[in-house]
Every structure is written in C-alpha cells, then in structure tokens.
C-alpha cells in the first residue's frame, strides 16, 4: 500500500502538470514572436517606423522603377502616392517628427494614377544600404502589388515580422547555449528578447534593422554555442557569413566581428605558440573570406546604384573629440539617458510615444541591479567568470565601435546620429549578462522565480507599450 503523503511532499506537489520541455518553450517563443510582431505591425501607424518612408520607397523603387536608389539626398523623390499617404497621417514636408496624432482613416488626398507609383527622382536617404533586405522584401510587395500603397507597406512590414520571428528562434537557441542547464532561464532570456519594446518596433516596421537583428541573433547563437563546444574552421566560416550578412543589412553589422577575439580567448584551449598561430590564421581566413565577399557584393551594389560610399565623407578637425563629448553629455547627461534608457527600451514611432517616466526609472534600476549582480559574479564566481566576461565583451566591443562610428560621422557633420535602437544587435549578450546578474542576487533555488518574473515583467512592458501607442496614436 502506498504510504500517505507527508506535508512536505504535499507542499512540493505541482499545481499543474509540468511537462515543460525545450520544444514546448521553443514553439511558444516563436508563436509569441509572430503574434506580437503582427500586432505591432498594425498598431504602429503607417510610415511611423523610423525612416520608414525611405526604406519602403527603396523596395517600391526597385519594383516599379527597376533601379537602385541613389543615396544622401532629400526625401523629395518619393513616389507621389507615398507622399500622399504620408500626408493622410499628418506627415508633411517636415517629416514625421513634427506630426501630431491622433490618427485614423482621414484621407485628405488620393493618388491612384499608375504614374503615382514611380519615384520622381532616384534619390533616397536609404540608398546607401545594400539591397539585401529590400530585395528579399520584393515578394511581399508583389503579393500586395494590386492593392493600395498602405496595404503594400503593410505587406512589406510582414518581411520584418518574419525576420523578427526568425531572430526569436535564434535568440532561444542562443539562450539555450548560454544557460544549458536551465530551461527556465533560457526561456526567460528569449522572451525578454522577443518582448523588448524597441526590438518589437524595429521588427514590425519596414527597416533594415530587422535584418540586422536577425543576423545578429544567429551570430549570438553560434557565439554561445562555440563557447561550450569550441570553435572550428567551419564555425569561423559561418561567423564570417553572418557578419557579412549583418554588414549587408547595415554597415555597423561589421562590428559584430569585434566580439570574435573574445570568443576565441574563452572557447579555445591554449596550445603551443606555433599551433596557436596556425589556428588563428586558419580561423581568421575562414572568418574573413565571407566578410570580404560580402563587402565586395556591397561595393558592386553601390556602384550599380551610382553611390560613392556607405558613409558620407568625414573631415577631420571640423568637429573634434572634445566637442563630441560635450554634446554627448550635454544637458545633465540627458542624451546619455535618452540613448541608453529611453530610446533603447521604448520610445515609439518618430518619438511621439514614450513610456511613463517611472517605467524608465524602474528599467534603469533593474538593469543596474543586473549589472551589479554580474560584476559580483565576476568577482566571486571563478567557474562562471568566463561566461560573464565573454557575454560582457560580446556586448561592449561591438557597442563601443558603434559609438566610435558616431564620432567618425560627427567630425564632419556635427550631428549625433545614434539612437537606442542602434544597439539592438547586442541585445542578446546584454540579456545574458543581466540574467546572470539577476540570478546572482537571489538564492539558487529562486532560479525559476527569477525566470518567471522576467517573463511576466517583459509581457507587462510590452502590453504597456502597446497601450501607450494606442492612446498617443489613436486617442
């Protein structure tokens, strides 16, 4: 006869069945990413993604005008129907930053002539980007080609939603390798990635950020996998391909490669200098070959489009480092806060909809707590030190180079161009660092509770972001 259940055993009985497998979690994360992406792609009004008109016009120009756009010119060359549709949602000649919601269907112009689909001149501010993201979006455009320009825009947004879903899948795989013995923590990391509000926005609008985010997520999957399994020449080739793809999506994607020396340091057992040098040369060649190939492809596209370079020329000495730093910390460090907190976590549309102030403060405190925990872990846990360091360097090296890119551009233009979303390609290592840190602040037995809290908080933050956008854009 079965002995009676003791009080302690009774307490430990689960309330519900707990068949929580890696496959269940993976499917749930992917479905979550798809559903969330579709919701965001509709709630964000047409043309209100950052620089969305130029990114969309790139696709339309490739299809309707059968040519690549030319970069660095004003928006005046957009097809008349795009300008007309923008006007319907209050985007006038001064751009979306000054538009005043709420929006609804209040057409003030109609553009239906076939000629309205053609760009009036080949210039497009997005024209310097390689057409990889845009070319792959063409099937989505063609599916909706007979429909209105707004429907075609929505169709092209689906490409970004799919890329966001793909990124979610890679994020889950990356997190599984970062936390191989804890499915709850891995799932929490993937959910936080999926529901991070700015990531949600950039994978729901027409913007090459979506391809950069997806390529970066795949990069981080291989990164954390190689941390566990070691790095082979084949891995090096895959890394090179992913960095090259990220570069083709957006030039700063190249900076992902800066994380690879850190990976090499932690993932490879040291051997003799001769062996080590041979291996470095072999791996370096494997990484470099696809990158060089992608750079060459980008050059070909640039010349086909008649564009001189990805970057505008920078003149040394016009605006110096001191001025850059002064601008950067201007206004009581307000820009620093804006870049790393406000516009990294949630500042939507063309900066129309922001979260309540206290939410930013809570986010700041929670992130600081995670960083403190990670530093604590670094100091106190010798076994976990390599993982913390590899994740932190994976975050800091590409982010630092991105910051330097801004300085390079600042020298000639005097403009600060980065926004929080510019750092989304390092969101995955940031989340790994934070989760390691948060976990350190609590007893080991609280792992599941920490992971569950992350999932619930991420869901709440995403829903709150949607509520804010609904009121601002449609209130």
């Amino acid at each position, binding site marked *: 006869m079965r002995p009676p259940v003791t009080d302690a055993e009774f307490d430990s009985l689960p309330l519900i069945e707990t068949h929580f497998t890696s496959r269940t979690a993976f499917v749930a994360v992917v479905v979550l990413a798809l559903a969330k992406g579709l919701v965001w792609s509709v709630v964000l009004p047409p043309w209100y993604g950052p620089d969305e008109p130029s990114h969309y016009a790139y696709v339309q120009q490739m299809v309707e005008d059968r040519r690549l756009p030319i970069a660095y010119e004003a928006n005046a060359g957009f097809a008349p129907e795009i300008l007309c549709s923008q006007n319907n949602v209050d985007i006038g000649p001064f751009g979306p930053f000054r538009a005043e919601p709420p929006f609804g269907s209040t057409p003030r112009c109609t553009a239906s002539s076939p000629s309205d689909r053609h760009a009036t001149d080949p210039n497009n501010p997005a024209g310097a980007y390689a057409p990889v993201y845009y070319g792959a979006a063409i099937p989505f455009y063609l599916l909706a080609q007979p429909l209105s320009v707004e429907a075609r825009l929505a169709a092209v947004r689906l490409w970004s939603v799919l890329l966001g879903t793909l990124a979610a899948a890679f994020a889950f795989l990356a997190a599984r390798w970062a936390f191989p013995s804890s499915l709850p923590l891995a799932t929490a990391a993937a959910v936080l990635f999926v529901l991070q509000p700015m990531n949600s926005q950039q994978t729901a609008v027409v913007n090459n950020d979506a391809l950069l985010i997806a390529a970066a997520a795949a990069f981080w999957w291989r990164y954390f996998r190689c941390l566990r399994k070691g790095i082979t020449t084949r891995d090096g080739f895959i890394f090179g391909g992913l960095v090259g793809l990220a570069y083709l999506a957006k030039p700063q994607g190249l900076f992902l490669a800066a994380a690879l020396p850190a990976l090499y340091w932690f993932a490879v057992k040291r051997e003799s200098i001769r062996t080590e040098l041979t291996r470095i040369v072999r791996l370096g060649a494997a990484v470099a070959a696809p990158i060089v190939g992608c750079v060459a492809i980008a050059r070909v596209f640039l010349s086909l489009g008649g564009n001189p370079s990805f970057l505008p020329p920078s003149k040394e000495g016009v605006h110096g480092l001191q001025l850059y730093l002064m601008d950067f910390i201007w206004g009581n460090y307000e820009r620093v806060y804006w870049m790393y907190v406000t*516009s990294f976590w949630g500042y939507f549309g063309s900066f129309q909809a922001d979260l309540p102030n206290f939410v930013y403060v809570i986010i700041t405190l929670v992130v600081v707590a995670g960083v403190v925990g990670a530093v604590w872990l670094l100091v106190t846990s010798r076994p976990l030190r390599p993982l913390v360091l590899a994740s932190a360097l994976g975050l800091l090296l590409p982010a630092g180079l991105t910051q330097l890119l801004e300085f390079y551009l600042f020298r000639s233009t005097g403009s600060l161009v980065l926004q929080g979303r510019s750092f989304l390609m390092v969101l995955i290592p940031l989340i790994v660092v934070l989760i390691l840190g948060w976990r350190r602040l609590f007893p080991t037995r609280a792992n599941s509770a920490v992971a569950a809290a992350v999932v619930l908080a991420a*869901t709440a933050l995403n829903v709150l972001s949607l509520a804010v956008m609904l009121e601002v854009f449609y209130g």
Partner: protein
Amino acid sequence: MKRTLAWSAGLLLFAAMLVAILTTPVYGDRGRDEINLLSIHELEVATGTVLTQPVPLQREGAYAIDLPYRWVGSCGRSRFSCRSELKPARVQARLTSSDGAVLADTIESLADTRVPYWLQPTGDGSFLQDYGAAFHPIRLPPKATGTVLLSLTRVDNEPGPLVFFVSDLAKNAAGLRPTMLESPGQMLDLQTEYGAPRPALAKAAVFVSRVQSLAPPWLPLPLLELLLAAVIAIGIFLYTRILFAPAGEPIDEALSPPRSR
C-alpha cells in the same frame, strides 16, 4: 505552496497593471493638427498680460481646452535650485462665443510643473521634455460650439515668468489656423478635448475602430485583437510553466574546459 503563492502574487500584479491601464481616464477624443510642433516656442507671460486666441472646436461634445504651460516661479528649471513650496500661478480664463456671449469666466490655478527628481534623473529624454510643459484643462460649457474666443489674463503676483507656448504662422504648413489677436503672426498652442474623461476601457471601441481603419485587409476585426490576447496568454502560459518547472535542477552554467580543434 510557496510557488502557488508566488504565482498568484505575480498574476495579481499583472492584473493590477492591466486594470490600471484600462481604467486610466482618457478624453473621448482629441482635436487634430492643433499644436504645431515645427515652430513651437516659449512665450513668457508677465502679470497683467492678456492673450486672446480664437479656438475652432472641431466637433460636438467639446469638453475642455488643454493649455500647455510651464510654471516654476522664480525657482529656475533646476530641481535642485529651489526646494520651497511654490504657490500656483493664476490665470483668468474668459470664453466667449462668436456672437460675443460670455460662456465662462473662471480663475484657473496653474500648479508647479517641476517633476520630482527621481522621475527624471537627467530629464525623461522625450522630445519635448526640454520645455518641461504640463497641460491644464480649461473646462468648456456644454453649449460651446463653433469657434470660441479664449482670453487669458495672468492675475497672480508671484515672482517669475509663467510660460505658455506659441507657434509661428509663417511656418505653419496649413496656414489656416487662427492666430492670437495680440500677435497676428503667432498661434497660442492649445489642444481641444472632446467628451468627459472616462476609463480607457470605455473608449476601446474608438481605439479598435481607428486601428482597424489603418489595418491591412488581411487582419480584419477581430483577428488583431485575438493576436493581442494570444500574446498575453502565451506570456502567462510561459510564466506559469516556468514557475512550476521541476525544481532541484543543478544550475551549473560554468563553461566546460574548451575543446581544442
């Protein structure tokens, strides 16, 4: 038992957040194209200054005119420079109809607009945060329709400038909005509100209808709403599964000795 309690507490917090969102008071509608952000700038108002602005009401049910302003008295913008209590600025708000009948004549108290330091460690970073503006609603009588004339006179004697916001006519793309009587080249920035404040939930139909009006044809009502419900449901599902996942799993995330290849 502990997990059940933690699960319940988490869901309770989540539900509380949803309730807070759904019960947040919102106006029935807002006026469109009223604040011209392109040319917006500050206008300091001394005691006794009069500003008169025609305000076209865009539809029935006008409830209030929201007046953006900044009031920090003589304390300056820095939240460290002055910790003393600040008396509100006072403004006489006189509303007249197009035929000259007085619709309302009230004294409005404009409260301190400084935000607590902890809420803006460096500034909230938003686009207009530099202005440090807050909105003050001036109630409209139910019978107000057409274009009403809003006349504002600062009547307090507190030290320091009261700041309103104005836009320039020349930079106004439409160029059709009425300007201030005292300054024909400028418009006092105002926002008209329609319908009394009510819980956001009561306005759900408006939100849904406006979103749907811009939604693509392949996401008809109520597919979008179901997807939103799915996002929340999956979040709660994962939260539950994770919290009740079997405990006692050894956590050892240390990197195993790397293999040489």
